[in-house]
């Protein structure tokens, strides 16, 4: 199959020039070996490209303040909560094939079965996924992405990286995002059927949905932090680590709640 999204050459070119600009800002200088504590901190923060990252972060923050967040606010104002929930559920359901693929690639059989049944229930009884009845029925949703799969396979995250538009990431997760961008099963089918516009619409709406759900959290972090960049870097990296480990942390817990549902 050669189905691909239309080549986003303009976006790639813009992204390329931002990265190039950022590289001009240069790398940070690591502290000298003679200061082992500072050195340990440097390794732990894992951000040798900080000057470049901060430039891209500033660009993203500008874009967010004047375009993305206002759009998310608009979405929140125009579409009532009930509608937004239905849209969110439908988007999550469209992600099921991707989540399923990642469950399988990570060898998470139980989670793969859950994803399969969730999609089956929600697509049928849940009216094409607009109502997430599977969660009500005791099969909770979970997130998986290709970056996490690569992590499970043992790939190192690499240095912290802020991507233009996409925000906090690292080489591994950025590669994962790119693979999903081109390899999402639902999108491939849509493109093959000639509905390329639908994949772009879907991306746009998911972006709105994601940003809308983070309005309050991000506002709060921005308002209360001394260094928004450093806070988000730490929060992102910790959250990512826990997401990757979660498959194992949460298994006993979700098994417990499933058993609870079965006994009723």
């Amino acid at each position, binding site marked *: 199959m050669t189905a691909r999204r239309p080549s986003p050459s303009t976006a790639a070119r813009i992204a390329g020039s931002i990265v190039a600009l950022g590289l001009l800002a240069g790398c940070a200088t690591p502290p000298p070996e003679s200061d082992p504590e500072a050195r340990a901190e440097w390794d732990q923060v894992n951000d040798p490209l900080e000057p470049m990252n901060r430039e891209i972060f500033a660009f993203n923050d500008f874009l967010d303040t004047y375009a993305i967040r206002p759009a998310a606010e608009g979405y929140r104002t125009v579409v009532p909560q009930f509608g937004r929930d239905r849209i969110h559920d439908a988007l999550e359901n469209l992600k099921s094939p991707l989540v399923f693929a990642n469950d399988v690639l990570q060898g998470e059989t139980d989670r793969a*079965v859950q994803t399969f049944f969730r999609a089956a229930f929600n697509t049928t009884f849940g009216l094409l996924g607009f109502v997430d009845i599977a969660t009500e029925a005791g*099969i909770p949703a979970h997130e998986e992405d290709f970056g996490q799969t690569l992590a499970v396979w043992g790939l190192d995250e690499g240095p912290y990286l802020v991507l233009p538009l996409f925000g906090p990431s690292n080489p591994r997760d950025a590669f994962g995002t790119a693979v999903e961008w081109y390899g999402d099963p639902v999108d491939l089918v849509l493109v093959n059927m000639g509905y390329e516009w639908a994949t772009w619409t879907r991306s746009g709406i998911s972006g709105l949905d994601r940003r809308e759900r983070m309005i*309050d959290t991000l506002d709060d972090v921005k308002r209360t932090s001394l260094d928004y960049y450093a806070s988000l870097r730490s929060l992102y990296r910790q959250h990512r680590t826990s997401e990757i480990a979660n498959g194992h942390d949460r298994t006993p817990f979700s098994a417990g709640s499933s058993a609870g549902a079965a006994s009723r």
Partner: protein
Amino acid sequence: MISRRPFLLAALGGVSLLVSPLRLAAAEAPADPAAAFISRLADAAMQTMVGKGVPDQERAARFRTLFTTDVDLVEIGRRVLGRYWRIATPEQQQEFLRLFEDIVVLTWSTRFKDYGGDLRHTIVGTVDDGDRGLTVSSRVERDRQQPIMLQWRLKRIEGGFRVVDLVVEGSSMAVTYQSEYASVIRAKGDQIDGLLSALRAKVSDLQSGTSAARN
């Protein structure tokens, strides 16, 4: 590895639930004292958070009481300042702890302030790590949203416990503050006074925000 059967049973159980989607909230009586401690603390915090008609200053005062009695802010602050704690003068240490307390109180007392709905806190379990303290896992359920997973790190004190860290969805508050403040100190030429003045500015910022929002 969990066998598939409990899940399939769950799926079938789920189908029967479709008929009556009313889920019974498990009445929860935490047997262990750590869980009881967290249950009480979280309930008090949440009542303060979503309490309507409470003036912001009153809200902050209640949080300060909670934080100074049940949370070990000195130990957290020390950890947050990390390697800089040892090179700080006693005066800098004292001022840092005072400002840090202000920041934490002001941050948490306004969180969820505009959230109109319910917050429900449920204990999931406790892990006792012996000398290294205890971890109580819990979750906060909000209306129509994914629950927030919390882990409370506790240390034992005479006749009870004190919170030494809160992990929200995998992110430790102490680690996040530590990383952020280290970054601020570095940006100010490794000067702790640089962090202190940034903290002072943020505290007055947040205070004016609170009083402005009060009008």
